[in-house]
């Protein structure tokens, strides 16, 4: 019975025409795959960049750069006025402002 069933289901040809028909229909996909494989082999040096240059990586780098810069700005901008204010206060509250001024003038 198995042999009879197999004979019933087995095509009456050697399969060459079928194989050629499949290859014809697959020619576009095979070409694209071949082109993709060739392109990949031509530019291996950039693969790491394609693999790692994802948006989250770029965003993380920008965030790190921002974190490094932002704390420096208040420190640099806020130092001078505070220093100036403390110097002028020292002059005004000094026990002998004339002496201080004289020393300053002398310099």
């Amino acid at each position, binding site marked *: *019975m*198995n042999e*009879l*069933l*197999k*004979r*019933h*289901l*087995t*095509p*009456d040809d050697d*399969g*060459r025409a*079928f*194989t050629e*028909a*499949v*290859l014809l*229909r*697959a*020619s576009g*996909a*095979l*070409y*694209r*795959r*071949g*082109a*993709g*494989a060739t392109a990949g082999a031509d530019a291996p040096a950039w693969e790491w960049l394609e693999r790692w240059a994802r948006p989250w990586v770029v965003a993380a780098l920008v965030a790190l750069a921002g974190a490094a810069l932002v704390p420096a700005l208040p420190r640099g901008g806020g130092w001078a006025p505070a220093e100036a204010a403390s110097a002028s206060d020292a002059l005004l509250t000094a026990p002998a402002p004339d002496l201080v001024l004289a020393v300053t003038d002398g310099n």
Partner: protein
Amino acid sequence: MVESDGALAARAAAGDRDAFGALVARHQGSVRRVARAVIGDEHDADDAAQDAFLSALDRIETYDPSRPFGPWLIRIATNAAIDLLRRRAVRRTVALDERMSSRDRSPAAAAAAAELRERMAAAFGALPERQRIAVTLFDVEGYAHAEIAEILGVPEGTVRSDVFHGRRSLREALRMFDPTLEDE
């Protein structure tokens, strides 16, 4: 040395036409038989078999080379055939195969063989779809119950039941015609 399916698949994935052609030539018989088991009509079955190979190429990266290629492909072929059957509402044919009537037989023997074949085709076509697939994979392609269960995505017990009932139906249909089938 014969190149393994896995090696051919890897080359086909890179667009190697010869490798893909070798895979098709190697597996076209089983894929076409399964498609015929599902669909019946040989032309529609070959369309489905072609679709199956194209689909396999399309998703060949999903093939695990450490596992056999055949079951992976047969699963795709089965789904492709079922899809085509659903889409086209294919009319099953039980055409008499002309080969049987022309091979060195007397007219009476040729007629008897043709009738046996016609009965087989009719009985097989009358089986439920899953039974046809299960019987084909088990009796014709030689897959184990567990493999068929994986291919069809059903429990192994279901496959055993399908094979048992399918074979019994076929035997009963052919027994009156050929009593020797009782011993199989």
